[in-house]
C-alpha cells in the first residue's frame, strides 16, 4: 500500500529534522507531526528515535534548545537550527541528492546495457 510508513534509512532522520527546523523553532512533537504530514504518511517517525536524534544533533552543535510555552499553555522544549547546523544541512542535502540521483538512475535502467 503506497502510503504505509516506510522504515527510515539510517542517518536520514537527522537530515529530515534539520530540514524541518530550517523554517523555524519547533518542539519535538511538532517536528514529528510535521514530518508525518508532509510526507503524506510515508515517513513514520519513532518518537524515541526522534528524541535521540534531537539530542545527538544538539550535542554536535547543529541545533540549540530551550524551554518555552506552547499555544496550549504547555511547557515544551523548543529546538532551533544554528549556523553550523545550516551549513551541515546544505552539505548533507547536496550529498543526498547526488547519491539518490545516482542510485535511482541505475535502478531505472529497464534493459540490460550492452
Amino acid at each position, binding site marked *: 500500500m503506497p502510503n504505509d510508513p516506510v522504515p527510515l534509512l539510517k542517518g536520514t532522520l537527522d537530515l529530515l529534522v534539520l530540514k524541518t527546523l530550517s523554517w523555524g523553532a519547533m518542539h519535538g512533537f511538532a517536528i514529528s507531526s510535521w514530518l508525518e504530514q508532509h510526507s503524506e504518511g510515508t515517513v513514520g517517525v519513532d*518518537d524515541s528515535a526522534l528524541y535521540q536524534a534531537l539530542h545527538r544533533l544538539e550535542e554536535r552543535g547543529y541545533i540549540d534548545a530551550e524551554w518555552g510555552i506552547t499555544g496550549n499553555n504547555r511547557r515544551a*522544549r523548543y529546538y532551533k537550527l544554528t549556523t553550523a547546523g545550516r551549513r551541515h544541512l546544505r552539505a548533507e542535502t547536496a550529498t543526498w541528492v547526488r547519491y539518490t540521483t545516482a542510485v535511482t538512475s541505475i535502478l531505472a535502467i529497464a534493459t540490460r546495457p550492452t
Partner: protein
Amino acid sequence: MSKHRFRRLFHLAPRDRVEIESDLRDEIDAHVSLAADALVRRGVDPDTALKQARTRFGDFDATMRTLAASARHREGRMQRREWLDVIRQDLRYAFRQLRQSPGFTAAVVITLALGIGANAVMFGIVDRLLLSPPPHVRDAESLVRIQQVTQWLGRDEAAGPVMGWLTYRDFATVPSFSSVAAFGFPRDMSLGRGPDATSIKVNAASASFFPLLGVRPELGRFFLEDEDQPPTGTPVAVLSYGFWRRRFAGNADVLGTKLLIGNQVYTVVGVTPEGFTGVDLKAVDVWLPMTALNYASMPNYVNDRGSMWLMTVASLAPGASREVAAEQALAAYVRGYESTKTLHATKRIEFTSVIAARGPGNHNDARVAAWLLGVAGTVLLIACANVATLLIARALQRQQEIAVRLALGISRGRLLIQTVTDSFLLALLGAGAALLTAHFAGGMLQAWLLPDLASEGGFLNHRVIAIVIGAILVTGCLTALGPVLQTRRVDLSAALKAGGRTNSGGRSRARTALLVLQAALSVMLLVGSGLFVRSLRNAESMRLGMDTERLILAEINFSGTLDFPQRSEFWNTALTRIKNIPGVEHATLTAGTPFWLSIAGLFRVPGVDSLPRLETGGPYVHGVGSDYFSTLGARILRGRAFDDVDSRSAQRVIVINETMAHLIFPDRDPIGVCAGIFRRDSIPCATIIGVVEDVRRSGVVEGQTMQYYLPLDQWIGPHAPAMIVRATSDDAASVATTVRRELQRVRPDMPFPNVRPYAEIIDPQFRAWKLGAVMFTLFGALAFLVAIVGLYGLLAYSVAQRRFEFGIRVALGAQASHIVRIVMVHGFAAMATGLMLGLALAALAGRWTEPLLFEVGSRDVTVYFAVAAVVLLATAIAALVPSRRAARTDPMEALRAE
C-alpha cells in the same frame, strides 16, 4: 559546600545528574501530553488518548537511559570549556595588569628570581653531591665501596676506605663479589720535561675499574687485564674528555701518542666520555693502570702491607647478600694478615654507597651544601612574604575597583581564582628569570663554592627543573595567601563610600604579619652571618706557628729520574740560587713538611716509660735546614734554634715542640735531656737544645701534636726534601712563579716542580666558614634591607590612612613628639616581634650549626646583641620619616580632604 552552591559560586550552569534526568522526563512528558491533546481533538477521550500516546512513544526507559547518558556527556564538555574560558580570561587580565605597572612587575619578578634562582642553584649542587650517581656510572645502586672498621686499643672505632694493594687483592678473591676494582686519589704529576713541563691530575685505576662501572670509551678503549698485571703493568694511558679537548683539541688521532708522565712514557689508548670522573667527583686528566703507577712510585708495592693509598669498589654477584659478602671479605682480610704475622685492628668490613657525598670522607662538603639549601629555602620564604606584601598593597590600592566589581555581580569565587592566577603568573615569570640566571650563574657559583669538583657536564638536569616547578607552586600559593585573605573581608558599602580607605584603624594586619615574618627570617640569617663571620675571623687569626701568607712550598717528585745523591746536589744548588732571588727573604730545605708530608719518629727518654697517647698520633719528626724556624716565623720559646755549627760531625741535637715539652716534661726543663731517636742503639742519643712553639702539622684545626726537629745534615738514611721559601712581602704568588722558573733552570731534564703559595694549600680548609660567612651575610643583608623597606612602606601607608585621625589630634593640641611616638611604637612593635621571633628561631636552629662553627657558640651573646642593635637602629631610621610627616599633619588639610 554543596555541589550546587559550588557551581553557583563560579556561575556555572547548575546541571547535575538528577536535574538532567528530570529535564528529560519533563520533555518526554510534554511530548506525550501534546500527542494526547491531538488525539483528544480528534475525539478520543482524554484517558484513552493519554494511554495511546504513551504506548506510541515507545520504550520509555531505554530512551531515558540513552538520552540521559548523552546529556551528561554534553554537560561535562560544556563545563570543561567554561573552565578553560575562565582561566584564559584571567590570564589575559593578569598579563594586562602586569604590563600596566612595569615597576611593580619588575620588583616582584626580580625578588622571585632571586628566591627561586637561589634554590635552583643550591639544589643543583646538593643534587650533584648527595643525590646523583657519578656520571656515566651504570646502575650505581648495585655498586658498593668497601671500607674497613678498625679499632685500636683504647680508641674509638674508626671507619676508612683507604687500604693497600694486598688487601685489594684479598678482596678480589671473595666469591660474593662478581667484580672488584681499585682506584686512587687524583694527584698532581708532571707532564713533560724542562721549560715545557706542566702539571696534570693523574689517577690510578685497575683494569677492572671501567668495566665494573659500566662506562664506555668515547674513543679507543680502556685498559686490558694483561696491561694491569703486577709487578710492572704496561705503560698505557686513558685520557679524560676535558683533557683531550684542551690539550689535543679533540683530535681523533690522539691514540698512540706518547706522554711523559712523571718519569715514565705512557701510550694513549683511549678517552673517557664527557663528565666521567670515576667514583669520586674530583677532576682527573689522565688515568693510568694501577700496577704501572704503583711500580713507578713504589717498586716494592707487591710486598708492602703497610702502605695504604687506594680505595676499592665492588659489585655483588647476583643473589649474593651483603652480610655474607662482608663476612667473606673480613675472612679474606684476616687470612691475608695471618701469613705476615703483623697486627691489624680491623673488626669488620662495611659497605657504603657509591653516590658521592654519601661516601666516606666527604661529609663537610655535603653538610655545607645541605646548609646552603636551608639558606636558599629561607630566602625563598622571605621573597614570597615580600611579594605577598606587594600584592596586598596593590589590592588595597584597587579596593574601590574590587568593590565595584563585587557590586556588579562578580562572584567572590571568581575573584579568588583571579588573585591566584595573578600569583601563579608572577611565580612563573620569576621562575623563568630564575632559570636563566641559574643556568649562567650556576656553573660559576659551583666552581667557586666547590672548586675540587669537576665542572664538566651541564648544570640543569630534570631534577633541578622539578625543583623549580615545585618552587613555582609553593611560591604561587604562598604569595596568593595574603591578598586572598584580604579580599574576603572587603566591606562593599564602606569601600564604595570611602573611595579608597578601608577600616578606620588603617592598620593592615596581614601586611604587618608578613612584615614580622620577613623580619624574623632575616634576623635568623643575620645571626647565622654573625656566627660564621666570627668563626672565620677566629680561624684566620689562629696562630699556626708559621706565617702562611708569606710562605711558598716547592716540591718535586724525582723518583726514577735522580738518585738520592743527585737529589741532594740539586736541592743544595737550588737553595743557593733561590736565596738570591729578590723578593725572597729566607729559604730552607725540610724533610717532613707542614701540610704536606708527615714522618713518624721515635722518641725515648730515660725515666719516661711511655709517651702519652694522642689522638693525632706521633711523635712526628722533621729534618730541617739551619734557618727553618726563622723561615717559618715560628717562635723559639726556650733554648735556641739550630745554627751552622750543628752539622753532621758535631753532637746530635734536636728541638722539641711546645706540646712535647708540656706533656713529657711537665715539671722539669727539657733543655739538656738526651733522647733516643734512632732505631739503632749504636747511634748516640740527641740532646734537646730548644723548645719551639707548636706548628700545625696538616690541619688548620688540629688537636695537640707532638713534633720534634733535627738538622737535615744529621738525618739518617735517604730523604726527599722539599723547600720552603719565605717572601719579603705578602705577595707570595708572584714570587712563587719566579721560584718555579728558577728551579726549572737548575737542570734541563727535570720534571715539573710543584711550587705553590701556602695560602693556596691552606685556603680550602677555611672554605666552609668562608662559604657560610659570605652566603649568610649576602642573603641576610638583602633580606633585611627588603624587610626595612617593607617597614617603611607599611608605616607610610598607615600614616597616609590615618591622616584624618592625626589631623584631629593635632587640632586638639597633641604634641609633635606624642604623634611621633605613636608611629614609632607601631613600627617598633612589628620589628621587635620579628626580632624576638627570629632570635628564638636562631637559638633553636643553633643545635645544627654548632659543628660548622669554630670557637663560637651557636648562642653567642655578642652576635645576638649586635643583630638586635642593628635591627632596632634600622627600625628607628626607617620609622623616622613617616613619623615626622605624621607629626606635621596640617589639621585643616586633613579635615578638608574628607
